[in-house]
């Protein structure tokens, strides 16, 4: 081959690379009208595995034939990072789903979202759970459409077999007691009285909600009782050991669905998951819901949770359409739509609750219904620019206390010290 030919090939390859590079960047940016329909883009995570998105989009499209909703699907674990990168790059996706309030605060404080007070007003401020979390000095930059909170899942068959009454009005003390009773080994298969997942919220957010504690204060004495309860359960073998759960990456779903755990404190998002698993024939667990166990037996139920919301991008290509969509999704129509698939809507009124309990497969006993109306739902983590850094430290120290490397007292002292030194200073 002649040299000139070689050089020509090399140049062609270079040009080719350059062109494919450009094409890659230009591809997904296309928006606008197609056959007279407005194309509304909405950022979502794990579109396949999060059926509420499809339900909402299909519902809205049916009610508004002139709109075509296009999901921008993002890997769930990378969602906050990806959205941050998109916003920094001036992306024009119309509606941004706020996966948690910490990210919401970050975007809103940085001026990336449009104020949507009018939308919130028309949906009705009084009926939207957790709306306070989105209040930025009287301005709302997102409207919650979904509100998850924590309750207690239990296996009715295992309770019956052990001759224990349904877990009504439990205190943590009583809860530990029956968890130990429910623990057994039959045919070499161990059944745990309860399963505590490895998340720090299982201990810390519960303690904060039920003691009125502040998780970014740097003072963590209010964690103590809850840690003692959790460690005692672990030591007695009534729950899977933290170290094992962590190193095995134990799935809380498997623990409950295969009957390896008789109880499990968990969020309401799991309702949709367990309904689906039963529908698909993956489990035949006979499950019920109960309120989260409490500090005392006063009868008042305090739990914690976190809302999910829709916001309008500052650079949205279709701001007005986006607002209309949010008004629908956060409103009664949207609430009923997601109720049908077992997702708990943020909008709470009698009509919505009635719709929710029509759900096929949902336990309809009085205790399960009671679990649905906690007296108080605290935010899982307070909204602040310090939340993310504090969360990281509390997570690391939670590990050490749960694997028994630090005593509860030392662990709590270390949390306080590190949060004060590294975050609050």
């Amino acid at each position, binding site marked *: 081959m002649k*040299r000139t030919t*070689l*050089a020509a090939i*090399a*140049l062609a*390859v*270079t040009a080719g*690379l*350059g062109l494919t*590079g450009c094409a890659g960047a230009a591809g997904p940016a296309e928006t606008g009208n197609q056959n007279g329909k407005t194309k509304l883009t909405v950022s979502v995570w794990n579109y396949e595995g999060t059926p509420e998105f499809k339900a909402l989009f299909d519902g809205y499209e049916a009610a508004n034939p002139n709109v075509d909703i296009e999901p921008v699907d993002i890997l769930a674990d990378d969602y906050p*990072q990806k959205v*941050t*990168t998109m*916003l*920094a790059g001036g992306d024009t996706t119309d509606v941004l789903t706020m996966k948690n309030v910490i990210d919401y605060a*970050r975007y809103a404080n*940085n*001026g*990336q979202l449009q104020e949507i007070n009018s939308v919130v007003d028309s949906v009705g401020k009084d009926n939207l759970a957790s709306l306070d979390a989105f209040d930025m000095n009287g301005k709302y930059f997102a409207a919650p459409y979904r509100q998850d909170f924590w309750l207690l899942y239990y296996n009715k068959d295992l309770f019956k077999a052990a001759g224990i009454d349904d877990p009504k009005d439990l205190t943590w003390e009583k809860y530990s007691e029956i968890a130990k009773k429910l623990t057994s080994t039959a045919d070499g298969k161990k059944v745990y009285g309860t399963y505590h997942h490895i998340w720090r919220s299982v201990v810390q957010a519960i303690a904060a909600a039920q003691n009125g504690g502040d998780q970014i204060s740097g003072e963590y004495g209010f964690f103590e009782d809850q840690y003692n309860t959790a460690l005692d359960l672990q030591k007695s073998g009534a729950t899977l*050991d*933290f*170290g*094992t759960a*962590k*190193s*095995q*990456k134990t799935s809380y779903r498997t623990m409950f669905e295969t009957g390896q755990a008789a109880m499990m404190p968990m969020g309401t998002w799991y309702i949709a998951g367990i309904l689906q698993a039963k529908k698909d024939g993956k489990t035949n667990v006979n499950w019920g819901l109960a309120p989260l166990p409490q500090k005392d037996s006063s009868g008042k139920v305090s739990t914690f949770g976190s809302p999910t919301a829709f916001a309008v991008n500052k650079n949205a290509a279709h701001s007005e359409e986006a607002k209309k969509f949010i008004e629908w999704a956060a409103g009664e129509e949207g609430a009923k739509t997601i109720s049908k698939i077992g997702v708990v809507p943020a909008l709470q009124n009698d009509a919505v609750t009635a719709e929710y309990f029509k759900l096929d497969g949902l336990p309809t006993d009085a205790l399960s219904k009671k679990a649905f109306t906690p007296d108080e739902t605290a935010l899982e983590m307070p909204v602040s620019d310090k939340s*993310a*850094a504090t969360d*990281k430290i509390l997570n*690391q*120290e939670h*590990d*050490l206390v749960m*694997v028994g*490397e630090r005593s509860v007292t030392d662990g709590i002292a270390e949390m306080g010290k*590190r949060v004060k*030194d*590294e975050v609050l200073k």
Partner: protein
Amino acid sequence: MTTQTITQAPVPERTAPHSRGNRKQARRNALIGWTFILPNFLGFLAFTLIPVLAAFALSFMEWTSFSAPKWVGLKNFERMIASDSFWVALRNTVVYALGHVPLTMALALVLAMLLNRKLKGIGFFRVAIFFPYITSLVAVAVVWNMLFSPDSGPVNQFLHGIGIAEAPGWTSSSDWALPAVIITSVWRDMGYYMVLYLAGLQAIPTELYEAAEVDGASAWQRFWNVTLPSLRPTTFFVVVMLTVSSFKVFDLIVVMTNGGPGRSTTVLSQLIYQEGIGEGKFGYSSAISLVLFLIVLTVTVLQFKIQQRRER
């Protein structure tokens, strides 16, 4: 990865230029050479060089990715020196390197010597040892996590079996998590370095061994005085590559322990990721990455210096 950078390639002898036509020809050749590296260089420029230079500049700024960066001078570095987490991560990184580099090297060499013989089915064993290196890292990490499980894991069951009552908690213990990660990474990497050593061993002329044998050298003396010195260029390459990869370790730790329990396995590159991508402090995380770069650079330059002195 190119082995050629270390083993000296024969330099073709240049003919002295003796006419104008030759000079023109030389320029043409250079130009063609440039055209050939251009595609690669453009990619390098866009995705490596420019971001690296930008990170250097960012380490003196405060930037959250939403607003314009703000110049803050040495503030990021002051914060880093005062931060406990930085020192913990630095210590973990150094401990990891001190465990990973010598262990991988020693095992790779031993395996290479064992597999450097003509035996039936030797290919199978070589492939078996190399296999972990081409296995998905996530799968490796998940499987080893199970092996290391404190109660039911085979590792601890084996330890119980041989009479060790208090088996370590491995990834659930802050003292043993780093050794667990090191063991996994050594197992994963040794196959690759074994292949390099194998190549080195096969390049040693058999005459040297024959001569040594005639002189009455024992097996140990042959290893010490023939094999090791002849492998020096390979060893040097292996040490440099291993050191650089040890300081940059990220993926294995993220999947296996995610830096835990507590901060016991948090390494520098993970801290960079957490502070930058996780919390949006791009200036601060750039400052840490600059420090990591300087550490790797210093260690590598030192290794080159030592190697040069030895060769003299």
